[in-house]
């Protein structure tokens, strides 16, 4: 019998939504199971890391890794799967661009650990212990993963062959990507497996977008009764459609919510947030500084809005760090 191609799934810093996206294939998952051999999938199947370590290099046809890289263990697993796989695919926004966890790059490690383990009102930690990489107890010692100073996209840690965008990727995007990868003709390395044009292009409200948009106030979805037919930008909602890759079939817009940008930029854009900022700011009405500032003040959190899924993959990667904050915190027990 001809051996079926081997496929692996792994998750790093993510919510589990991408695993859900695989299951969301519904009946089509039976075709997938028939076509491939799943050799590693911690969320669903009982294989261990040592099982992967025992495999020959390059014996897995494709590994889908979702989630950003935040800890040393995730970087190790990414490297391990890289060496065991012919193709390494970043699945979903976190792995592709850093994703929502990537917004933690607005803080450094120390302030994150302090907030979670010392300062949060619901934390009870009288000894003030912080996570440590070594721990000794009763003659036994354990090693734990290290918490990095920054969140990184998968391709900032290992070489990545393809990207499947979305938070999470829709079943259609994932199915199409899988068919492409199992097919005979592979696309150019580094391709994002989704259409390469802006979401506005496939938006059902495209025809209602005015020739010249002019924005006098940005509104948040809860501040108005949203017209279900009209272009969301024309209603003053901050829709990321102009700077976001298509492929999701405008799911959020169909649900009457503005696009938040999860599919990342098209191939011509390096920095999704800067491009959206550029496009949006030029639509703002007003020629006086005070008037412009008044309108722009209705965007409360520019980085969180424009870089919601892409901060680690952006040109600046993260908030500027103080070099002094880089030293290792003293190991606590």
């Amino acid at each position: 019998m001809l051996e079926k191609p081997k496929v692996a799934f792994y998750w790093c810093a993510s919510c589990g939504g991408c695993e859900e996206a695989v299951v969301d294939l519904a009946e089509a998952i039976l075709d997938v199971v028939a076509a491939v051999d799943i050799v590693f999938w911690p969320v669903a199947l009982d294989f261990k890391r040592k099982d992967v370590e025992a495999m020959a290099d390059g014996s897995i046809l494709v590994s889908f890794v979702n989630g950003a890289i935040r800890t040393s263990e995730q970087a190790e697993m990414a490297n391990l799967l890289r060496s065991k796989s012919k193709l390494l695919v970043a699945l979903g926004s976190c792995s592709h661009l850093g994703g929502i966890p990537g917004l933690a790059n607005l803080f450094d490690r120390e302030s994150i650990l302090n907030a979670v383990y010392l300062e949060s009102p619901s934390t009870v930690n009288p000894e003030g212990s912080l996570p440590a990489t070594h721990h000794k107890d009763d003659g036994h010692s354990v090693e734990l993963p290290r918490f990095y100073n920054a969140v990184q996209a998968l391709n900032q840690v290992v070489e990545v062959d393809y990207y499947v965008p979305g938070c999470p990727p829709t079943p259609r995007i994932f199915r199409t990507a899988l068919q492409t990868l199992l097919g005979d003709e592979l696309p150019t390395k580094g391709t994002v497996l989704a259409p390469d044009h802006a979401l506005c292009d496939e938006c059902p409200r495209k025809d209602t977008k005015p020739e010249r948009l002019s924005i006098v106030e940005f509104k948040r979805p809860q501040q108005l009764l949203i017209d279900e037919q009209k272009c969301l930008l024309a209603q003053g909602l901050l829709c990321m459609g102009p700077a976001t890759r298509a492929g999701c079939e405008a799911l959020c817009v169909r649900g009457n919510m503005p696009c938040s940008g999860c599919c990342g930029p098209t191939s011509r854009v390096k920095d999704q947030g800067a491009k959206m900022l550029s496009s949006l700011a030029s639509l703002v009405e007003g020629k006086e500084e005070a008037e412009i500032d008044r309108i722009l003040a209705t965007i409360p959190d520019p980085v969180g809005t424009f870089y919601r899924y892409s901060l680690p993959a952006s040109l600046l990667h993260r908030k500027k760090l103080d070099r002094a904050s880089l030293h290792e915190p003293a190991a606590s027990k």
Partner: protein
Amino acid sequence: MRNRELTRPEKSQATFEPRIVAFFCNWCTYLAADLAGTSRMKYAPNVRVIRVMCSGRVDPQFVLDAFAHGADGVFIGGCHPGDCHYQEGNYKTLRRFHLLKRVLQQMGIEDERCRLEWISAAEADRVRSTINDMVEKVRALGPLDLIPTEEKVSAEEVAV
């Protein structure tokens, strides 16, 4: 995305010379800089001028890319309001600049590192004074010193 080149060697504060990237509009500030040159005016040599057809051509990505590649400051020069060769370009610049400044603040990059000035073709002296002023302000701040994520992780942490 990996192996981003590191253009700046470590420098001490004492020998620090700010590196400033300037985007000058072809119709006004660039001509003013040219006039400053032909008039033999002297100004700080820390500025690398890039000519663009309009300050409206300055994509915010250019500014971020300059910072990411080792610039300590970015200076944008355009036509006075109402004087744009393309009628509206400098207003678009102004709006983008105001939003970009808020992003830079959130990213921890000091206000003085990014500056927009309206300088007409006749204002050579204004090129001299604003550049000198910016160089001194950035010098006082010190190097931007962004720590690249990749460098840190690949060098110290991923030893698998």
